[in-house]
């Protein structure tokens, strides 16, 4: 239910699990939650002990208690809001652009054999090559301003979304298309009322994958070329040997990542409840 891998098969699996919420699976989920909390507590505990007993230098490695008090401090003084807002806004803008561009283009490419043939190799390559490798070139092209960072976010988010939407549009049920034809639906109606909803599970899986990559893109961009944002904040604090603050900012980044992917997963359950069994 909390799958983070993003193939089409994971969409189906999630749907099926949701279709049969038996007593046992609910119990299992609680057990997993408890086990997860124990595991996390064990690691944090060990870290705290190491830092407290001087096995590691907390000035170097920070410590859970130090990071926690820094976190509280960052929120109390309001220091965190500006970088947090910067990172969130760049991720959300990047996602918005990726979604607005990716879904229509994906549907179009998936439904058009010539377009698919033309673009498939390119998109596969762009998807497979680690986008970080384009970073120097993107800096060269776009500079290091906010626009350049937005380009990197879109660059990292667009291709996983595109790949998923194309796969969904290509996997349309031939029966559904024939129904659409037999009832004289226009091309536009077929796209909107048949192709789009049928592709929705793939679109949402693509968005779930894209949102994770968009966040990574944003942080990487801020690390290398930022003057603001959480990535820059971590970079700055680390260079100043303020490990507790850096660690606290990482906690905030982790929280964003979890909220974003879980949010999309929630949308998936709400919007594609019908795709349970087939």
């Amino acid at each position, binding site marked *: 239910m909390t799958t983070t891998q993003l193939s089409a098969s994971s969409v189906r699996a999630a749907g099926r699990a949701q279709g049969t919420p038996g007593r046992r699976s609910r119990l299992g989920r609680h057990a997993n939650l408890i086990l997860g909390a124990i595991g996390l507590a064990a690691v944090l505990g060990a870290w705290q002990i190491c830092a407290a007993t001087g096995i590691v230098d907390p000035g170097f490695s920070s410590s859970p208690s130090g990071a926690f008090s820094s976190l509280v401090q960052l929120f109390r003084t309001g220091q965190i809001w500006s970088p947090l807002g910067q990172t969130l806004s760049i991720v959300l803008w990047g996602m918005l652009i990726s979604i607005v561009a990716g879904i229509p283009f994906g549907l179009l490419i998936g439904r058009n054999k010539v377009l698919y043939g033309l673009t498939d190799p390119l998109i596969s390559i762009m998807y497979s090559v680690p986008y970080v490798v384009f970073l120097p070139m993107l800096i060269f092209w776009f500079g290091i301003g906010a626009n350049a960072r937005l380009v990197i976010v879109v660059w990292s988010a667009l291709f996983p979304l595109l790949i998923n939407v194309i796969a969904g549009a290509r996997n349309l049920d031939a*029966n559904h298309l*024939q*129904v659409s034809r*037999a*009832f*004289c639906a226009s091309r536009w*109606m077929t796209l909107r009322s048949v192709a789009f909803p*049928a592709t929705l599970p793939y679109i949402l899986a693509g968005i779930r994958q894209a949102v994770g990559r968009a966040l990574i893109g944003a942080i990487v961009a801020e690390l290398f070329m930022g003057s603001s944002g959480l990535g820059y904040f971590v970079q700055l604090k680390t260079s100043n040997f303020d490990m507790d603050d850096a660690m606290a900012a990482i906690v905030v980044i982790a929280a964003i990542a979890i909220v974003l992917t879980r949010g999309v997963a929630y949308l998936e359950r709400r919007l594609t409840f019908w795709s349970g069994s*087939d």
Partner: protein
Amino acid sequence: MNLARPKLVIEDLRLGHWSRRGGSFALACDGLSFEVAENEFIAIVGPSGCGKTTFLTALAGLTPVASGRLELNDAQIAGPAPDRSLVFQQASLFPWRDVKANIEFGLKAQGRLDGKGRERVAELVSLVGLAGKEGKYPRELSGGMSQRVNLARALATDPDLLLLDEPFSALDAQTRELMQEELTRVWQADGAGSGKTAVFVTHDVPEAVFLADRVVVFSSGPARLVEIVEVDLPRPRTAELKRSARFQQISDHILSLVMSQSQPGRRPEYDDDDAVVGQ
């Protein structure tokens, strides 16, 4: 039957598919000629894979006519049109639409989902026995229920010609019997007079006899016309009819026609399909 003004004219009709590799033309139907009258219920039977479904999709306008006449209301069929509706064999409902929205699809596609259209959908929901299930999604429906929705979706656009492609073949025996009765009831109840013109493709001979005014027997592929059998059984028809001597007599006659088509040159692995015909 009033054959003076035929609804549907089929004359010297050839249908087929261009195979992708080699570019050869695989003939599915050859030299078919018959006529269907207004308000007539026609069933087409024939050995499995003989081209019945291709014929039906040609009527729907989904398969192009290779040569010959295929005329509905004196106009050659050249593509899908609102005057025809198809009830599909498989579960072809849209899983993301609830029952009501699935039934509305045809009307919506043809821009006719106004107040009158909605009224018609509401009528059909109760006519096909889906009252109270409007908000259900296809995954929550049984096979029989799904085919009721399928039928209602086809009837919603109020077509001149209703095409049914083995709609009950995936159902269990009891549900199938029930749905056959339901179909005759709906067909007789819907619209003015004695129902719409309907073409029903099946490989189940008793089903064909029970439903149809005339049964058209196709040969094994490529399909040619073997015989048209008049079913002179009174309407309204109920399940008891199937036990009558006349029903048996007609069924046996058609069955022997189909079987004789299945025999020559058939390979043993097709025997399973023949068993279905002879159930």
